[in-house]
């Protein structure tokens, strides 16, 4: 296990750190300045998610160690790393999905807009932080019902047809399904099912959308469409995507975090992380020397 001090807590924005960080320990003086050369457009963007010293255990096994990071609003943040590095587990901490697993235990805090989600009602946390899973998993209902269900259980009172259409359009699926909204969702192809799952997630109007390897079960064409959809969603949502595919991370993300053996090794603007990695482990991984 790599020692703790090598974990790089990456904060790319000085001003933002000051404003958000009453409980953040002072940063080490020797911090690499590579990340703080962020272009000025980033200065205006607020940090949406602030994770501080997160540790996570499955039973006695510690899966995440001292994770700290900030995720900016209306950006795509990619989590990369070899299998078993904890990136999916970390993602599932952000919407408290791990609460459902017996024996799971979390320490540390995850602040969303400054509020600790572990002090909040998990139902309301998940309602604000949507999730798209690795395997497309629509409900065995009609396409229409799939989109609508989450909104209805959260007390949606607006126009149902409009909501369904808007969400399907946002997920770039409307034109393909508008004539068969009453058909069962399992009649769709894998890529369409995954975009339906995105539409379903958007229907509850979340702030943050978490995606756990959403393209890993899709063919290259469906993947390209999904990536296009993700790029378009960025203007309205904060998106975190876990991916095995480094090309995908570099294509769609603004920031990238590299996880290894349960630690956050490095986080930076995507182009910086891929062109000038600071940690040798990151470099080894992105150049294909392991992983």
């Amino acid at each position: 296990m790599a020692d703790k001090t090598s974990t790089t807590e990456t904060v790319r924005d000085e001003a933002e750190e000051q404003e958000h960080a009453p409980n953040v320990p002072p940063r080490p003086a020797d911090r690499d300045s590579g990340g703080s050369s962020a272009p000025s457009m980033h200065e205006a963007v607020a940090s949406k998610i602030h994770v501080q010293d997160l540790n996570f255990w499955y039973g006695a096994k510690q899966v995440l160690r001292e994770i700290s990071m900030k995720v900016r609003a209306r950006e795509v943040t990619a989590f990369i790393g070899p299998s078993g590095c904890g990136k999916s587990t970390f993602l599932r901490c952000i919407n408290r999905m791990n609460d459902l697993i017996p024996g799971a235990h979390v320490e540390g805090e995850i602040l969303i807009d400054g509020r600790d989600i572990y002090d909040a009602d998990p139902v309301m946390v998940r309602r604000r932080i949507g999730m798209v899973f690795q395997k497309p998993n629509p409900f065995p209902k009609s396409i229409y019902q799939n989109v609508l269900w989450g909104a209805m259980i959260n007390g949606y009172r607006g126009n149902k047809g409009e909501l369904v259409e808007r969400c399907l359009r946002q997920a770039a699926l409307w034109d393909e399904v508008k004539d068969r909204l009453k058909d069962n969702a399992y009649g769709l192809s894998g890529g369409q099912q995954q975009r339906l799952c995105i539409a379903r997630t958007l229907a509850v109007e979340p702030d943050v959308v978490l995606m756990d390897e959403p393209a890993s079960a899709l063919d290259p064409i469906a993947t390209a469409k999904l990536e296009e959809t993700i790029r378009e969603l960025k203007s309205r949502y904060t998106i975190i995507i876990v991916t095995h595919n480094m090309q995908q991370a570099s294509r769609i993300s603004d920031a990238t975090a590299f996880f290894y053996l349960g630690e956050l090794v490095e986080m930076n603007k995507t182009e910086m992380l891929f062109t000038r990695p600071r940690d040798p482990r990151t470099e080894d991984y992105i150049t294909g020397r392991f992983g």
Partner: protein
Amino acid sequence: MPEATIPFKSTDFNERVHTRHRIGMFMSALFFGATIFSLIVLLTLLVDVAIKGVSWLDWTFLSNYPSRLPERAGIKSAIVGSLWMIVLTAVISVPIGVASAVFLEEYAPRNWFFRLVQLNIANLAGVPSVIYGILGLAFFVRFMALERSLMAGALTMALLILPVIIISTQEALRAVPQGIRESAFALGATRSQVIWSHLLPIAAPGIMTGVILSLSRAIGETAPLIMIGALSFVAFVPHSVMDGFTVLPIQIFNWTARPQADFRHLAAAAIIVLMVILLCMNLSAILLRNYFERYRPW
């Protein structure tokens, strides 16, 4: 296709391929024989019953009350009693059984108490039915003073099939893909919303199959009802759940015990009726399952 060109000369292998094929053929013959054996036994029984009973099977038989004269005896009270019994048993056992299974599967923490309860339910499913009869006699008939009523019988039967309903419902719930649960929770659903909107509808075919199969068992059960004192000669149709009753297996048991051959033929005719009812129930289980599984990809 050219022959494989890999030279293979190792002496470490002795494939005995013919022997292995012969063993395989022997095995398949063995398995086939086992299947045929049970089929033959079953067919013999069915044919025997059919030969004896089918000539007695007519409208008079279905619509008359039992009588000491074989040619006027019928199973009206037994059929009506059995139908009452099944409906009452289902009404009592299904809600309790499904609710228990939902609690155990979706709510109960996985601790020693859960494992103890689980073990006991599995055990109860194997307890001889006559034991349930003794319990029913002591508790429902005597303590709750329900007498020899349909209610006492149905409560006893409900206890008898409850473990099977719980276990089959648990299995049906466990078979719901985890992705459905997770994606419903991820939309901000509460646990009860996930259960009502997704888990129960998806598990419904499995639950219904378990319910119908256990009710099929209940409709054929005799011992517990004899224990609680169901009547064997009933010349009336029960009008309320507190009335006395008889059921088909008890009527069959009663007739088989008579010395006259005619009554044994009556018993055979009643067995045919019971089997037709069972067949209908099992058929409906299959049809329901197929109907609800139309859109299942898994």
